């Protein structure tokens, strides 16, 4: 190859590359770009991904097109019912209007601090205007309605199942619920942030927790409730035992007296039968029966060591005296 041709060729390639590098820019799928000329925005924001060209002195500023996160600092907020709780919110947002965004907040850090300001105050407003349960529960659940229906059952001591493990504290009624509060926060924040070109997609109440000192009080209450339940279960056991002991007494007396009754009936019938039989036989000659039975009785009734004084005026001794 010839030296005089090679060098211009290489130079041409180098210049070509330089021009390409300074005029071409690429926009990724997750990006959007704004082209500025000496600080002034030129044309519409570029949202189509791919290779684009512009003039070399123009500046390209890229912004994210994806959904971004915002993480709030946990805030201690008193609720309407004067309970101190930690509320930890998180939000998703996107840059909806890049031009407005760049003009008003410059970059994401700027945006974040604006969102901090708006969301913190909105969250505080919404939470402190509602009772704690509103932020905890979501549905105006059926449980609330069924709670009073369960009440009569409490009298039934036998229902020792999982149900009455719960102290029958009625659930507080809720008016709105968690999702509605989230929606409210979003609605209020949306207006405040639209002027920065920011769209709030959603706000999640990531964590709601009792303030530490309140928490320990809650734990104490839970402990005392559990102990109450334990005591109730124990006493139900004792009650059950007393019941069974009673049953023992009842059944025992019933069985014994029943046996006595049956035995006496049998005996009575037998005695009656015996009387009937005796009477039937003896009626044939009562005098003779009396005579026989008396003799029989003599044999049995007079004991051996009886001292006997007899007069000779006795039928037995008649002959002894009279010799006839």
């Amino acid at each position: 190859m010839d030296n005089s041709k090679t060098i211009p060729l290489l130079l041409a390639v180098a210049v070509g590359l330089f021009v390409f590098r300074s005029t071409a820019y690429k926009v990724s799928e997750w990006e959007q770009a704004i082209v500025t000329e000496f600080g002034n925005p030129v044309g519409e924001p570029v949202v189509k991904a791919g290779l684009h060209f512009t003039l070399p002195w123009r500046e390209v500023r890229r912004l994210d097109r994806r959904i971004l996160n915002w993480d709030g600092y946990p805030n201690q907020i008193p609720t309407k019912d004067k309970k101190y709780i930690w509320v930890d919110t998180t939000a998703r947002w996107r840059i909806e209007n890049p031009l407005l965004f760049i003009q008003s907040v410059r970059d994401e850090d700027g945006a974040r601090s604006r969102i901090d300001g708006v969301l913190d105050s909105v969250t505080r407003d919404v939470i402190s205007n509602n009772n704690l349960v509103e932020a905890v529960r979501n549905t105006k659940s059926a449980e609330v309605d069924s709670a009073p229906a369960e009440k009569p059952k409490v009298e039934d001591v036998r229902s020792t199942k999982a149900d009455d493990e719960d102290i029958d504290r009625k659930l507080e009624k809720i008016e709105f619920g968690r999702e509605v509060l989230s929606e409210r926060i979003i609605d209020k924040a949306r207006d405040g942030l639209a002027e920065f070109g920011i769209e709030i997609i959603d706000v999640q109440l990531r964590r709601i927790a009792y303030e530490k000192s309140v928490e320990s009080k809650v734990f104490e209450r839970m402990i005392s409730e559990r102990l109450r339940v334990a005591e109730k279960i124990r006493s139900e056991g004792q009650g059950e035992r007393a019941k069974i002991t009673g049953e023992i007494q009842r059944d025992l007396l019933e069985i014994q007296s029943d046996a006595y009754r049956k035995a006496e009936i049998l005996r009575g019938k037998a005695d009656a039968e015996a009387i009937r039989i005796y009477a039937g036989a003896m009626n044939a000659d009562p005098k003779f029966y009396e005579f026989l039975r008396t003799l029989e009785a003599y044999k049995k009734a007079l004991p051996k060591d009886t001292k006997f004084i007899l007069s000779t005026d006795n039928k037995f001794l008649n002959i002894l005296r009279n010799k006839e």
Partner: protein
Amino acid sequence: MSDPWENPDDEIKEMLDGLSKKFKGGFNFQRGAVLIAFGAVFCVLGVLTSMYTVEPEEKAVILRFGRYAVTKGPGLHFKIPFGIDRHIKLPTERILQEEFGFRSASTKGARTQYEDKAFDEESLMLTGDLNVADVEWIVQYKIAEPQKYLFNTRDVRKNLRDVSLSVVRRVVGDRRVGKVLTTDRVEIADEAQNLMQEVLDKYDMGVRIVALKLQDVNPPESVRPAFNEVNAAKQEQQKVINQAKREYNKVIPEAKGKAHETVNRAQGEASRVVNQAKGDAARFTSVLREYKKAPSITRTRLYLETLEQVYSKFESMTIIDKGVKGLLPVFGDPAAKGAN
């Protein structure tokens, strides 16, 4: 988030540097050879940077000048080098897992080790009756649509965690602590999984929740002894009831047996009384029949026989003539007795 792929500007710079070095070094040699060597290096570099492998569990998304071009499956693939094509590999077939309230420290060896630290901030939550429960759970998910996964949200993992924390709290917040700890576990997991998917679909994140499983669900640490107390009370209750039942079983069957005994004995006695009566009656009837044939003599005989029997039994007997009046028999004097 750091750029996971190579920086094209650096690549080109490197190449230009190498080119100029070679050019200077080879000034004294024949220029043709230099150019050929330069071309060869250029080609080798191009081939090397255009090759990439996609593992079996992965998919690769190809971007051309930042614009989505195509998604490739597992295997060896080529792309246009020098920063024109970029590939991003995603483990689409793998099930990914997020843990809440605990962390596995290591899954090596026979048994998974867990970190001792408690993640109370994640796991403590309020229940519907304003009690506190300690709930641990995992979320398993897959990257269902790589494009959406890459292009629609910036930090997928963080979104997933935030949503899961919020949703599980929302589901638990609708229940009483007793139910959360016992019967409603499965229901909570199902409901939370559905809700999570719903929210993530709203972000169009390209992620599919495979499972949400509750792990340990406990009362908070300091309340746990009181909950155990309830369980102990239940056991105690059972014990007391069983004892009472045992007592019942000990007493009642025996009493039943004894009752049978009493009745049977009475029956026996009744039979005896009746039989005796029958026997006596039969005997009397027989005796009476014969007596009627000679009443007087039989009567005397029976009388005398009886007296004989009776008197012979006695130890002592005093006979007094009916003519003797005013005699007082002297008892307890053997001499007197003998004299008579």
